[in-house]
């Protein structure tokens, strides 16, 4: 929050998956800003589209998924000079319109990601140090205009892994391991992923993600599957790194406790939409949206015993296009739902006069403060019709 101009401006982002069962609206017309130097957390249950949102920002959506609409404006003066004027707005570049090669070149250098399962994400047959060094090396070579040529490939086949990575890159990898507080980092760099404990490997993963000094980092469930004591360490590490390196982090998690410790701002996601966005403190301590309230009430209280928890009835809805109505997607589970809720899409309003804190609900929020981040209603209707016709077309 060091700067008033956000690093990313996401407008009407829609990501759909075209599966055999129908179209899945994983991210449905999402608009939000990511401020520079903040940790924005997205919380939600599984299947709410939080990972898809994160991956969409990085352009990592793979078939059958597709970003079908929306704009992702990224503030990068250097990039703005390189691309066509049509897709530039001041210092901002619309990433959805840049050529795929440019988009890809941003990965690692500008954008990076911490994946959920480090055991799965590391190559088990290369040492951790090499894998981190690879990220450094790729960036270095890209800067000097080198590409991984067939000769490099041949060298790698003949002497696996030995040629491509230079000594400096390896040293940098060791430094990175030190930065993420891995004890005995020199020896550790020369070990294989299976020799690391889960927490250590997650730290190594973070080292790899920050290897090329990214400006924006997506952390997808970075602490899930770790013991609480280890989780606490990883949380501290992320927080420290974010301060030291001035990172902007998008944190994706289902753990509201982790959000409390880490997030500057929090977005609550449900069925592919943002239901409540605001400073973490306001969202978690003064929630306004019935879903956020429900989510908080359904957590067993850690500090008080025998407080009752109230589960949200029903299940997380399927995001199939054919099963989603026009209205609020939480309406059928919502205790406060009325007929209005199902008729039309809920408006987005501010809460308690706080322009930072916005919710999407018919029944809550300050009246008359409809936030027009986008031409939401019409766009949404058109899109729905669009995809319906597309569906019919594919079915035929």
């Amino acid at each position, binding site marked *: 929050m060091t700067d008033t101009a956000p690093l990313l401006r996401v407008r009407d982002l829609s990501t759909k998956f075209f599966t055999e069962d129908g179209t899945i609206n994983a991210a449905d017309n999402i608009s939000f800003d990511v401020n520079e130097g903040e940790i924005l957390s997205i919380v939600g249950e599984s299947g709410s589209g939080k990972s898809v949102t994160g991956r969409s920002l990085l352009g990592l959506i793979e078939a059958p998924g597709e970003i079908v609409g929306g704009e992702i404006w990224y503030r990068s003066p250097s990039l703005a000079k390189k691309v066509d004027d049509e897709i530039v707005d001041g210092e901002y570049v619309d990433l959805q319109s840049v050529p795929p090669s440019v988009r890809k070149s941003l990965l690692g250098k500008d954008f990076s990601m911490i994946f959920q399962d480090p055991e799965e994400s590391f190559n088990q047959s290369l040492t951790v140090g090499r894998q981190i060094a690879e990220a450094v090396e790729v960036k270095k070579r890209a800067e000097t205009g080198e590409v991984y040529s067939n000769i490099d490939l041949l060298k790698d086949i003949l002497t696996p892994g030995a040629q491509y990575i230079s000594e400096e890159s390896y040293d940098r990898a060791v430094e990175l391991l030190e930065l993420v507080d891995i004890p005995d980092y020199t020896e550790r760099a020369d070990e294989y992923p299976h020799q690391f404990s889960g927490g250590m490997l997650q730290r190594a993963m973070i080292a790899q993600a920050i290897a090329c000094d990214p400006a924006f980092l997506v952390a997808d469930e970075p602490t899930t599957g770790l*013991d*609480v004591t*280890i989780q606490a360490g990883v949380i501290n590490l992320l927080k420290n790194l974010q301060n030291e390196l001035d990172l902007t982090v998008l944190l994706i998690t289902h753990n509201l*406790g982790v959000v409390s*410790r880490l997030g500057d701002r929090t977005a609550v996601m449900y069925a592919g939409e943002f239901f409540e966005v605001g400073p973490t403190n306001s969202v978690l301590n003064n929630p306004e949206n019935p879903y956020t309230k429900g989510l908080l009430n*359904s957590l067993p209280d850690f500090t008080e015993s025998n407080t009752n928890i109230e*589960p*949200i009835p029903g299940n*997380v809805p399927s995001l199939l296009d054919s099963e989603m109505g026009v209205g609020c997607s939480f309406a059928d589970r919502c205790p406060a739902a009325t007929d209005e809720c199902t008729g039309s899409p809920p408006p987005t309003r501010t809460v308690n006069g706080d322009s930072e804190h916005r919710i999407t609900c018919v029944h809550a929020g300050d009246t008359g403060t409809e936030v027009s981040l986008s031409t939401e209603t019409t766009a949404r209707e058109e899109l729905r019709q669009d995809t319906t016709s597309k569906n019919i077309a594919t079915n035929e």
Partner: protein
Amino acid sequence: MSNNISQSTDQTRIDTQQPSLSPEKNGRGRSVADGPILKVNELKKHYIDSTGIIDRIRSSPPSRVHAVDGVSFTVSRGDTVGIVGESGCGKSTLAETLVGLKKPTSGNATLFENDIHEWVDQNRKRFARNVQFVFQDPSSCLDPKMTLRELIREPLEVHDVGTREHQNNLVDKTITKVGLSVDQLDRYPGELSGGQRQRVGIARAIILEPQLLVLDEPTSALDVSVQAQILNLLQEIQADLELTTLIISHDISVIRYLCNKVLVMYLGKVAEIGRTENIFSNPAHPYTKTLLESVPKVGETDIEYEEVDPDIPSPRDPPEGCRFHTRCPAIIPPDKFNFEQSEWKSVFDYKLDLQSGKLSHEKLVSIADQQGIDKDKGSLTNLLQNRYEINGEISDSTAQQILTESFTDLIEGNTESAYQIIAEEFQSPCEQKSPSSSVVTDDHEAFCHLI
């Protein structure tokens, strides 16, 4: 409704009872109803590695994983006991041993004063009637080719309970009890959501009205809002059927919500056991404190948390004395010195690193190389002081002398004597003898030298 069920199952129990079985004698008699129904006595379960041919020729002893290493506790009727601890602390092994899936290495556990493992050997079926298990992952423990009716009826068929008609009636009653409806009985597990599947898993476990129900991470595969439904369901069932329950979970708030007793385990041993309110409001063991503090709480923003050493020692070779002493922030200093706790912790960390070989002369030099530090005595001492966060002189001058001596030896290349000096002088009671149980308050014990 619950009356109906218990009546009818009691009926079937009478029908199917086999009087010849010895465990039955004390079994369901109400004579033991007031005392503890489950007693675990110095239970140990070690996994022994298979030895290779070379080991056998050398006749070297196989290495052992001390998964559960001397655990004792009792459970009274109607108790809900939660077992918490980090992964690898042996909580799942403990549960599996208690339900007879694994044989203990030594020690025993009794249910209604009958040794569980003798009972299992004699008649596993009869034992299983009394003890049921709910698994962690509801999707992998349900046969996808069976309908819900078949799945829930299966335990009744295995145990020959009543006629088919009677079984179907029971199935109908049980499914409503777990919050599903009768018309869902013809569905297959694949058509259900995760929460609904876990409900089926619970229905299968409670349809036999077991005396003891063991749940291994019952909600960890579920979403928050669905988890809440299952938690409430478990609480209802618990109250309804007067079940005695053991719950294993890494989610401490789940344990707090469901259990009236908590068992904190660390590396195969009990660290602390007691009533839930006592453990949470007044944790006595430093490990319990650490565990509770490290849980991120909702709504508490900007909390600074003091990390503990994340290095959990291997249960293959657990530390001597108190198992937690290698990570303990409150480790007891030796009597003869006047240490500040933080100083003592630093010195002790230094000692542990020398002991485990994490620090040696060679390592020190390579660290210095790495950081581009000169290898003269002053710089290396500084390096050591920074590494162990020792700021300048420590308050006790004798201790400082010993430490300086050890540093000098280490820097001069004599790792062994550097360790010897420090090992002789700086000994903590925590590493010498393992703590015995100390009573904190009623029904609240902790295994720590500090108490």
